[in-house]
């Protein structure tokens, strides 16, 4: 039975103001059931205040075979990191 249920990816927002984070996946017959399953499986210990689910099949992913073309070019461009600024001591939480 489980094989017939499509796979959903689950995203949980742990607190208001924070972003939804991917926490895992589960099987469900439809979107409503997926939210209920996510609630029952992933928020039993007060892990979240909001749930997103999305059919895993609907996620478009980058191809690992293209990793070089996609990510290598950024490797020698360290100047894109904001590490060349001197941060004043007074500035916290940056």
């Amino acid at each position, binding site marked *: 039975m489980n094989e017939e249920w499509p796979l959903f990816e689950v995203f949980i927002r742990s607190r208001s103001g924070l972003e939804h984070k991917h926490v895992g996946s589960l099987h469900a017959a439809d979107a409503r059931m997926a939210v209920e399953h996510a*609630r029952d499986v992933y928020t039993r210990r007060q892990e979240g205040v909001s749930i997103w689910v999305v059919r895993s099949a609907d996620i478009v992913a980058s191809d690992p075979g293209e990793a070089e073309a996609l990510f290598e070019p950024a490797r020698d461009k360290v100047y894109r990191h904001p590490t060349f600024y001197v941060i004043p001591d007074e500035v916290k939480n940056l």
Partner: protein
Amino acid sequence: MSRAERHAAESERDLQSARCRYVLRLGDTALVLGQRLGEWVGHAPALEEDLGLANLALDLVGQARLLLTYAGELEGRGRDEDDLAFLRDAPEFMNLALAEQPNGDFAGTVVRQWLIDTWQLQLYRALAASTDTRLAAIAAKALKETLYHHRFSSGWLARLGDGTAESHERTQRALEELWRFTAEFFAPDEVDERVQAAGIAPALASLTAPWSLQVDADLAAATLRRPAVASYGWHGKRGVHTEHLGHLLATMQHLQRTYPGLRW
């Protein structure tokens, strides 16, 4: 003590005894249904449903703990939640007969759950405004849980009822089988009338219309037929049970009966 004072004292004692019995009924219904749902653990059709049913069961057992603790205090014989749960026999249990009905197939469990959810939804909503503040607080907490229970069970009711020909047929059959037990929801006896008069509980008749409305809406979404009203022969809340409760208690109480006072 004058006759009037004696009369007032007797009336107060009656009310306390009715209040205790009423709370016991609510607690026992939650406990017995929670125990039934617990039987699914390890057997549900999918891992996710296993956890879902266990969560419902834990909510219900949590409600039962609060209610039985309160009932024990009202009774005033020093019995706590565990004494009441594990050391009473079937005729002393005051749960609705519907709660003790066996799980059957998954459709049977869903229909039983949904019928009790729709009833508890109306009841807890009303009890949240009880003059008994302790009961009102328990009902307010239970209402939040019940809203989710109903979301869960009505979702499954629609999925099964409006699913395949087989799932529809099984769900309709479970509905026909269990419907007769709903008469007990709304059949008041002297306990119900006593607590209603004191503002502790709502008039059961006042819950019928909103319950019926909810039931019809859910059934329509599930493409299921509302069964005809059938004659009713059980009064679980008066301790008159179907044969199923004894077996449930034998499992639930086994440890305490075999090793009295055992703790871990």
